[in-house]
């Protein structure tokens, strides 16, 4: 099953093209976990998370200095290499400086018919939620104007239900991972595939996958690890951790629990419910203050019995790197050994990382 999930990521462009051909719908590229994808889905479009590939960003390198986010750069590189030619639009939230800059960069360099900039507040507060609710309403209006179709209340309600079901299924996958029924790699591949597949289709796939996983014998787990990371848009790093004798049982990552951990509450005002969920969700360090994120990490650590924490921050990810010293201190104060990497997620890096990971696992085993 793991191989199939890997293949899904590899074939994501062909899958999107096929979906477009069969449905005649629009495909919309999305950055980050702050965009309420439900509205795109409710408009009959397919939201796909923009991702890069582990190859030389030869085209994007001509546009960016070397000290910028490798994830954002590689995603743009894919655009420049015509791999995202099927996109009808992109949605760019003001997550961090690099992602924010992608609004203009994509618009100026690629032939994208529709580009929308979504303002997301930095502060989690009642006023922040109210502000974001207004922006979500504007976003709905923008999608309607572009497509020429109204997004009905019923379609939004159905989309919220479909997305909540996907979150519940991914949460079950998270529990299976904790019990050893799923590996960390399988779990992350599930999250990543959810980011570009139509959610109803992904829900069916997940249902079958979890049913099969539930019948497995529980293999002995390796050293139980929590991973906290900035964007990891493939499962290679988690595979490395598990090859070295670790078992990833919990995470704090955009392509992980931040994507599925909290559901949208049913409420009379779906826009308020969406604003609340997307703003208050497991917080990304681009929001103030780190307290809520740290509380979440502490809680999952205790629930999953993590024996060590691995922090992986992409080079130039200021948001995550600024919070790293405080996160490290919090984890160490709880008695948890911490291993830290800052890199670009390249193949060459993995060999030196392997040395440190093996030493870390040996140290925990004692």
């Amino acid at each position: 099953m793991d191989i199939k999930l890997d293949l899904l990521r590899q074939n994501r462009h062909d899958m999107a093209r096929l979906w477009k051909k069969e449905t005649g719908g629009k495909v919309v590229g999305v950055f980050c976990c702050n965009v309420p994808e439900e509205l795109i889905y409710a408009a009959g479009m397919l939201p796909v998370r923009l991702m890069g590939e582990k190859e030389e960003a030869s085209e994007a390198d001509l546009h960016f200095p070397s000290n910028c986010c490798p994830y954002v750069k590689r995603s743009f590189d894919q655009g420049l290499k015509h791999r995202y030619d099927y996109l009808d639009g992109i949605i760019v939230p003001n997550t961090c400086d690099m992602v924010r800059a992608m609004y203009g960069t994509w618009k100026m360099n690629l032939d994208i018919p529709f580009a929308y900039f979504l303002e997301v507040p930095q502060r989690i507060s009642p006023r922040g939620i109210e502000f974001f609710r207004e922006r979500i309403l504007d976003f709905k209006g923008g999608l309607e104007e572009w497509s020429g179709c109204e997004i009905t209340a019923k379609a939004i309600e159905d989309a919220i239900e479909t997305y909540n079901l996907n979150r519940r299924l991914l949460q079950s996958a998270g529990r299976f991972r904790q019990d050893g029924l799923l590996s960390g790699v399988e779990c992350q591949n599930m999250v990543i595939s959810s980011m570009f597949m139509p959610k109803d289709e992904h829900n069916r796939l997940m249902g079958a996958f979890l049913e099969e996983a539930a019948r497995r014998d529980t293999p002995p787990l390796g050293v139980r690890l929590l991973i906290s990371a900035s964007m990891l848009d493939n499962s290679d790093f988690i595979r490395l951790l598990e090859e070295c004798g670790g078992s990833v049982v919990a995470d704090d990552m955009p392509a992980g629990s931040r994507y599925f951990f909290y559901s949208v509450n049913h409420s009379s005002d779906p826009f308020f419910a969406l604003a609340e969920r997307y703003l208050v969700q497991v917080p990304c360090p681009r929001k103030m203050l780190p307290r809520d994120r740290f509380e979440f990490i502490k809680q999952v650590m205790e629930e999953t019995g993590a024996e060590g924490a691995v922090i992986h921050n992409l080079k130039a990810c200021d948001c995550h790197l600024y919070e790293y010293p405080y996160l490290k201190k919090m984890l160490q104060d709880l008695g948890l050994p911490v291993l830290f990497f800052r890199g670009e997620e390249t193949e060459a890096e993995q060999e030196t990382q392997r040395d440190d990971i093996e030493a870390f696992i040996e140290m925990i085993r004692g």
Partner: protein
Amino acid sequence: MICAGIDIGAVNTAVVVLEGDRITGSRVLDSFEESLDPRQVTDLLLEKSGIRWEDVRAFVATGRGRNGCTFAQKTGSDVACQARGAYWLFPSARTIMNLGAEASRVVSLDQHGRVISFATNDKCAAGSGLFLDSMAHLMNLDVSEIGEFALKAGSAIEVSSRCAVFAESEVISHIHKGESRENILAGLHTAVADRIFELSCKLTFMPDLVLTGGVAKNIAVVKLIEKKLGTPALVPSNPGIVGALGAALIARSIRE
């Protein structure tokens, strides 16, 4: 019982044969210069020590090339093997600084010799043994003599660049200005010691300090680290074999 450990590093390959509590043979070879693979290095050592392959009960490999070692029953990380070897030589060791050709690492141990934390350098070459090697080459000196040269300096020049490549051009401009080799080398050694000191600041430092790895043979690096940390350093007579020794000790514990 005879056990052995091999440390396949970025430049050197070291082998240690252990019989009971006694090191019966050890050898360090420059893998590039000698054009020998790990198996051939081990063959030479065993032959010299009068030991047959079949008498070696367990073999453990460490170092960057450990996963390619086909004759080892087990592999151990550099951190674990350096810690094991240094603690066996000096049971008072609480901090190990392993100064290798490519990697520098600092390891903290508890009183039982267990690793409690560690830090390794990033992928940058500045501060590594290979950095000193290339600087020695630049000044027409052998790497084994640059430490003594640096100690004779009147004053150390400041090497502002932290990058090995830029440091080279900086050194060239100092040579052109007529700066003495001693002063330039003192500056370079200070830069190396600073990098290792910064690495050690990531951990809680505890004496006794043990220095291992080929760079620990460099007297200027040793003295500068001692000065920076304000504590004497224990240096094994052959610091380049400590990783292989640790691997041999792990091999022994597999059989016990």
